[in-house]
């Protein structure tokens, strides 16, 4: 599961390097030399592989379980993070987390989907698939950002909103709709970053933002390629074709002018270097926040609305 099929040659080489390192306890110059040669080969191979990933492969990278998740970003980027829980109506959703904290000195509200990092935490966080409580918690936190005049940072990483009986009973559709509306009505800046999977309504609910960024190998789509294939091709086997047809990569969406920027991932994808990935995301947010904070409030909201209204008009 954690191994990507197209990375196999790279993984094999990396395995060999590890073996050599174990052997080379007695300092053997030849081996060290060999290792550095192989490392160069690995880098070259990664560069080649990642330069020509197809959309279906990007989907796999975007879902890679070793990619940094919401809580990794919080830990690296947010000082004094203080989690806030509950929607004040029904419960606390663990798939969509949020709280207050400080980003590079600036107080802010942070919200995001958490997928979990091992079996136990994945179950706890419901694999990042939020229920209405999650979206209502997001609304509450955004309202708080408005009250205290601090920006909102959102991190999107979800396969989609949870499809369940309880979720429907408690108004999943309404919760998402209101969450989008809350984003759009904010008088404070909201910056969204798609860090892994941007799954349909469950993603846009917290991503109707002033600036929308996507990590290089993240995806953002109206429906999962598997879902699309099973409806339009009548078989999930065609998910590769669907991934291409849906135009769900960062590059596609930048070309369609639906996102504002692409954040570079380290060589070989975010799962190879969490720290560097998070640092790049932090840099992008810092630039964005700086620009948006200096904007007049009414102008901010107007610019945001006009940005969305312009989408799809000129392609």
């Amino acid at each position, binding site marked *: 599961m954690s191994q990507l099929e197209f990375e196999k040659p790279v993984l094999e080489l990396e395995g060999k390097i590890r073996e050599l390192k174990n052997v080379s306890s007695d300092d053997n110059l030849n081996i060290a030399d060999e290792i550095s040669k192989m490392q160069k080969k690995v880098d070259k191979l990664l560069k080649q592989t990642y330069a020509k990933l197809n959309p279906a492969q990007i989907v796999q990278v975007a879902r890679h379980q070793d990619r940094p998740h919401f809580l990794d970003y919080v830990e690296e980027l947010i000082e004094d993070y203080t989690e806030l829980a509950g929607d004040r109506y029904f419960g606390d959703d663990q798939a969509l987390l949020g709280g207050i904290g400080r980003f590079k000195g600036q107080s802010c509200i942070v919200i995001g989907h958490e997928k979990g990092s091992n079996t136990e935490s994945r179950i706890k966080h419901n694999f990042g698939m939020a229920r209405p409580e999650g979206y209502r918690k997001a609304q509450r936190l955004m309202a708080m950002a408005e009250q205290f005049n601090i920006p909102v940072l959102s991190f999107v990483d979800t396969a989609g*909103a*949870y*499809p*369940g*009986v309880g*979720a*429907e*009973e*408690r*108004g*999943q*559709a*309404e919760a*998402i*709709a*209101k969450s*989008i*509306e809350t*984003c*759009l*009505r904010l008088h404070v800046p909201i910056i969204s970053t798609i860090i892994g999977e941007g799954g*349909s*309504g469950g993603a*846009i*609910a917290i991503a*109707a933002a002033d600036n929308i960024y996507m990590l290089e190998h993240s995806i*953002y*789509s*109206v*429906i999962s390629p598997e*879902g*699309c294939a099973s*409806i*339009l*091709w*009548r078989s999930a086997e*065609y998910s590769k*074709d*669907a991934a291409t*047809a*849906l*135009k*769900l990569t960062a590059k596609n*969406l930048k070309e*369609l002018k*639906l996102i504002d920027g692409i954040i570079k991932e380290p060589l070989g994808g975010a799962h190879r270097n969490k720290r560097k990935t998070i640092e790049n995301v932090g840099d992008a947010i810092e630039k964005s926040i700086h620009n948006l904070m200096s904007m007049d409030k009414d102008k901010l909201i107007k610019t945001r*609305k006009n940005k*969305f*209204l312009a*989408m*799809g*008009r000129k*392609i």
Partner: protein
Amino acid sequence: MNWLTEFIRPRIRSIVEQKEVPDNLWKKCPECDGMLFHRDLDENMNVCYHCDYHMKISVKERLELIFDDSNYKEIALPEVAFDPLKFKDKRKYSDRIKDSRNKTGRNDGIVVALGSVGGQNTVIAAFDFAFMGGSMGVAVGEGIVTAAETAVKNDAALIVVPASGGARMQEGMLSLMQMPRTIIAVDMVKDAGLPYIVLLTNPTTGGVSASFAMVGDIHIAEPGTMIGFAGKRVIEETIREKLPEGFQTAEYLKDHGMVDMVVHRKDLHDTISRILNLLMDTNRCCKKSKNGSKKGCSGKVSRSKVKSKNSNKAIIGKAA
């Protein structure tokens, strides 16, 4: 004699009648299997007169049903990019659009019209389910934006009538972006102090239910309408158990607080008229004057009302 009248004559008649009666004179109710005579069904607004099942009606019938005197003017909608992703599954999306255009005679899955309901200026944006299942792509989103702008410009209420499976996959993320876009649109109407009513019709699901359709001032649903975010099959596959009875119906949503009222098709016009009058004609009745005595308002209406009444006449004139 008996043999002739009881056996031969009915058989002859049945042969003759079969030739005279075209198939489409009778319809079968999909809910109760009851036979429905087309003229009676028409008169009953396509509602089964055995079990009250609300069948689909055309956009034209829908607009005639809601607007006063069935009178309205269709608003031209802006051109949008054709097949922006060059999408192709088993068939080309461009071919699917062309088919739907030929079938419906429309450019895309939404119609916007201006007229009056209960004497109040009203814009209706109605989805056409016959056009690719009423799915929402750029054109439909743009239709709702146009409807909202028209409502604000004419001091009119906005009624959106979804009948849609959700976002149109073949337009990918451009479809998903119609969720925020349509919410921006209906918020323009709300911000102008004008009523925004959603009339949920069968079905309203997916990205359509999770956007403009769930942020109305008032949510009205036709009986039996399927309303929900996730599809039944997806939920069943996720939870691996049978769904409760009546799950995701209009009645179920009313019980769970998401819909204000479930209204029979025959009562829609009157119900919407009453609501719009209550919300737009807010100062019709007697007001207490300063000295405490009641002062009749002699049919005077608020200033904004006078304005809209006047513009109303102009519209009706045009619509005719």
